[in-house]
């Protein structure tokens, strides 16, 4: 009897825990992401404790009344209740490895760990993970999950964004996937389950390794202190390939600790081989000797510039130094007297209408177009160097990106009724365009760009926060607006957006 009273006391204690959340509700916004996540987590914990306690209580009663055979059915019932309360166990170890996206989605909709911060998005993410584990694409499941993400009335948060990114990757749209998964950086931690963040990081690490961008692999691995064994293997392999560590044993230990050793064996071989290649006296570039000769000592200035341009065109990605070298080569050529004389002679022979100067300008335009594209493709964060050709290339970047920014602002202004995911993607487009302009423009131009986007994004923030209930997205946009307002020294605008930031995700 005493045992039963103790157990009943525990049950009462659980109800108290559920009824009185910790931390106290007045310390946080009751409608915010943290409050709702805390509430969900407490309900799950409370439910689990109630189930276990009820099982203990009923088992004791069964034993005391002389029917111990009831304990086994009670245990089965406890397991079933726990699977309902924590479906992730079943999803993680059965549905995802065996590629059952729709079942993974349905079970995950029951909620629980690890998606308490975003149950709806987490369910879609579980489905997307199962999609990626299948040998062949499951188009119906992918379409269902996509429709679910777009059509849901629940707020879009981190797990939903990761699910959208993985589904985009599954459909082959890697650029969109990258953009969505990288966008987690601007989301408040309360609006993104840590597991979703880890999955996004893992995908970005694997994507960078697939592209051979090993510096990016290290950056992505270092973005989070908690890394799984596979991510640690990627980091060690990247360090080895880039020559930042000399120990082969470290690499082998990382490989032995990671799962799927047969698959990862190839990267171990590659890393060791690349280290051996790096210590060779001179690596063969495979570049045609005649072009290399022309780049150093060609017969005419414009041939040297063209050869350097060709050499840069064949190396992807290009560094800032490469762009500067190519631009200086053209600067030395385009306005040289012998090149002008050559152009003049050819114009006369061909019967052309352009003057040598206008021809040189046209050529500079083509060169600037290439340099601008290379700079954008390489994802360089700063514009390095000045000069006639480089300045023209910079203007080309500004012209192209300001056009894209204008289109993104217009799309965002029209996106009031669009789904939160579409709004988020349009905003990411706008943010990326603006980031490029920040890298290439001076403060006065930036102020003009900021003035054009400020009122549109601010209006959208209000709409998302008040009308659509998308507080996490509105919070991230407000935070970005504060940063950009401070960049252009617009104190009034920064103060205005700070109010929206304080409201929380």
């Amino acid at each position: 009897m005493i045992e039963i009273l103790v157990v009943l006391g525990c049950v009462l204690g659980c109800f108290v825990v559920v009824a009185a959340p910790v931390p106290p509700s007045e310390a946080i916004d009751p409608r915010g992401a943290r409050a709702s996540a805390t509430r969900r987590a407490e309900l799950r914990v409370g439910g689990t404790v109630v189930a276990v306690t009820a099982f203990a209580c009923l088992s004791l009663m069964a034993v005391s009344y002389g029917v111990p055979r009831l304990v086994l059915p009670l245990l089965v019932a406890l397991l079933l209740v726990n699977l309902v309360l924590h479906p992730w166990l079943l999803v993680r170890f059965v549905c995802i490895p065996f590629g059952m996206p729709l079942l993974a989605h349905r079970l995950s909709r029951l909620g629980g760990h690890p998606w308490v911060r975003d149950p709806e998005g987490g369910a879609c993410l579980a489905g997307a993970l199962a999609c990626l584990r299948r040998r062949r694409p499951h188009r119906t499941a992918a379409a269902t999950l996509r429709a679910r993400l777009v059509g849901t009335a629940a707020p879009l948060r981190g797990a939903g964004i990761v699910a959208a990114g993985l589904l985009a990757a599954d459909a082959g749209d890697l650029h969109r996937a990258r953009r969505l998964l990288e966008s987690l950086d601007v989301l408040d931690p309360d609006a993104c389950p840590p597991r979703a963040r880890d999955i996004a990081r893992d995908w970005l690490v694997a994507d960078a390794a697939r592209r051979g961008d090993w510096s990016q692999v290290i950056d992505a691995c270092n973005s989070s202190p908690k890394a799984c064994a596979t991510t640690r293997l990627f980091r060690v392999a990247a360090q080895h390939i880039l020559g930042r560590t000399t120990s082969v044993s470290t690499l082998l230990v990382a490989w032995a600790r990671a799962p799927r050793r047969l698959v990862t064996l190839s990267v171990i071989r590659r890393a060791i081989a690349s280290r051996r290649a790096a210590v060779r006296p001179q690596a063969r570039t495979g570049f045609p000797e005649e072009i290399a000769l022309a780049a150093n000592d060609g017969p005419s200035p414009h041939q040297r510039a063209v050869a350097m341009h060709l050499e840069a065109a064949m190396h992807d990605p290009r560094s800032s130094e490469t762009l500067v070298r190519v631009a200086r080569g053209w600067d030395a050529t385009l306005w040289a007297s012998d090149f002008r004389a050559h152009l003049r002679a050819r114009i006369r022979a061909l019967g052309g209408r352009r003057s040598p100067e206008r021809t040189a300008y046209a050529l500079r335009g083509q060169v600037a177009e290439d340099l601008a594209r290379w700079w954008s493709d390489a994802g360089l964060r700063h514009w390095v160097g000045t000069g006639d050709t480089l300045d023209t290339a910079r203007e080309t970047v500004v012209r192209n990106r300001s056009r894209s920014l204008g289109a993104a602002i217009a799309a965002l202004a029209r996106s009031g009724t669009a789904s939160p995911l579409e709004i988020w993607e349009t905003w990411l487009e706008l943010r990326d365009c603006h980031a490029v302009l920040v890298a290439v423009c001076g403060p006065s131009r930036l102020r003009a760009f900021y003035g054009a986007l400020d009122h549109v994004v601010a209006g959208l923030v209000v709409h998302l926060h008040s009308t659509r209930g998308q507080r996490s997205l509105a919070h991230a946009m407000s935070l970005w607006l504060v940063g950009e307002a401070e960049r252009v020294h617009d104190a009034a605008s920064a103060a205005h957006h700070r109010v929206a930031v304080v409201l929380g995700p």
Partner: protein
Amino acid sequence: VTGVEQGASAARERVVPHRRAFDDPRSVRRWTANPFHVLELPTTATWTEIERRTSELLAREVTDEIDTPVGPRSRSAAEISAALEALRDPDARLLYEVWASVPTRREETSVDDEPLEWRDAMAAFGWRQR
């Protein structure tokens, strides 16, 4: 026998694919799609020589291979006709002349001995490759 020959021919095509200029990244199309390389003419060729060369190539009605500064590429009748059109304008032609001033080569140019891309990276996490 015909089947075997067809199979061998298909296998050869698979081993040595004909790279097309429009498959190249935009950066190198200034050379792979340059009319002077497409027509295999020097930049000093006269308009008469260009027209004669175009007629000869179009009369052959076969897709063959040309050398460009980045290695061999295939050329089709459409590309030959486009090259002729591109050289009609003397101002545009002069720009093509400048870009075509680097030598061509027979071998495919590879920048690295072995690329450092890891195509199975997704499989390391158990995810499907695309």
